[in-house]
């Protein structure tokens, strides 16, 4: 993969097109520097450690542990698509085997065992209106 598909949300560094492309294809991939092997997340254009401009988008299991979480009780302006789900929990997940890289996602299922350090597994969802037309990962505590 060597291109970035255009995506509607313009914020951030916006070098993560291949992340969404992979999710849309049902795969969870994060970029790894082709020069030094370092996991470089969030995606950027150049490895600041070795200077390489090339990245291998490497498939991973969507598994990890809860690094932090919040339960949202308010329907915020820019995430109105989820107003009907309030309250909902968003987890920040430290991915297994990716040098501490973290991604976010909504928590599905039982919240009783939710805590920092709890193991979680992700399910990849097809693009949806709730996710602003993007594919996404929902997580559940294992």
């Amino acid at each position, binding site marked *: 993969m060597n291109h970035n598909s255009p995506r509607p949300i313009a914020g951030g*560094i916006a070098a*993560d097109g291949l992340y969404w492309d992979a999710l849309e294809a049902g795969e969870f991939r994060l970029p790894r520097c082709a020069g030094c092997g370092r996991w470089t997340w969030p995606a950027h254009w150049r490895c600041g450690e070795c200077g390489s401009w090339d990245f291998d988008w490497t498939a991973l299991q969507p598994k990890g542990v809860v690094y*932090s979480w919040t339960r949202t009780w*308010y329907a915020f302006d820019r995430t109105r698509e989820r107003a009907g789900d309030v309250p909902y929990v968003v987890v*920040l997940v430290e991915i297994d085997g990716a040098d*501490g890289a973290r991604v976010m*996602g909504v928590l599905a299922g039982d919240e009783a065992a939710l805590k920092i350090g709890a193991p979680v597994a992700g399910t990849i969802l097809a693009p949806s209106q709730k996710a602003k037309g993007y594919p996404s990962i929902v997580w559940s505590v294992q």
Partner: protein
Amino acid sequence: MTGSLRGRTAVVGIGQTPLYKRGTAPDPEMKLCLRAIVAACEDAGIPPRDVDGFVSYGSERNEGQKLMPALGTRELRFGALIWGHGGGIPGALGLAASAVVTGQAEVVAVYRSLAEQSGARLRVAVAQDDTAAQYLVNGVDGPVQICSLRTQRMLEADGVPRSTMFALAQAAYHHAQRNPQAAAYGKPFDAGVYEQSRFVSEPYRLYDCSRENDGAVAVIVTSAERAADLVDRPAYILSAPTGAAGGWGPLEENHRPYASSGFEAVARRLWAESGYGPGDVDVAQIYENATGMGVGAILDHGFCTAEEAGGLLTFENLIAPYGRLPVNTSGGNLAEGFVHGMSLVTEAVRQIRGTSVNQVPGAQLSLMTGGPGDSVVSSALLGSGATR
């Protein structure tokens, strides 16, 4: 120290409009901005047309060149914006000081203005352009929920007690009772009110979060030499660094260290340049977009460790006049009003002047910390003639 800004400039004028409930300002944003700058000039005894530098931060839209006709500006010699959002406020003082010390400008207005009518819900506008898909796709709208994730980690993994968040809010509301200009003036606040308020995004309740007001705030920075001729008690800028250490920035929650408000590198430079340390500070204005982030800023500046936080950050310790570290003495963003933190700068100056409604007797060192958790942050230490 060669190249140091320490004590070479001072804040000589402060001005602010009333802080109106959002969407209710009688004037458009630019007019509010002009009123604040003119008030700061009058306070300093400087004709508005003498202002030759304009500095702000974040998404300020009232650039100096737009203000020139109304101020009678003879020549605009310096104009710049610090990147980031509320993180840049105290650093804007440092940028103004840099311009003055290097002869680029003589009289610099540092200001922030905000009005919903003309600003079209700035909170939305501000965050729209730089919120990454990773957030919005996953139900994270912006600052409040992002702060929630970071603070939850600070509480649950680092063991900072929740009582510190309530204490910061309680101190702010307490101070606001002596400030007739404050949004929370005359509004009682206690543990019951706090705990009965609804959650916005855990661990944050409504009373943990700042809410934007309409208004404008400005200060005037000039050289220490000129300051001494203008006012009795200039607030000397001892240090006002801006920055982000490697491992910090717009990293979509991959910041390291994570349970931090991002000030460690800036605080190190602040203490090194000023020659003072946290134990010397008499009073502090701590920008709190949310209480826990303010707690993080206090930790990052070295006032205490996570283990010590519960002991230091109590209501008694955080209030003027005699607490160990009086904070947010005009009510702060939470209880005075929120113009993206700029009213904390004027209060930091008042403490050096001895004119705060919650004055810390004989305050000689006054700290202001900028928007915590922003991708770049900044802090400023103001001093009196004695600590310059």
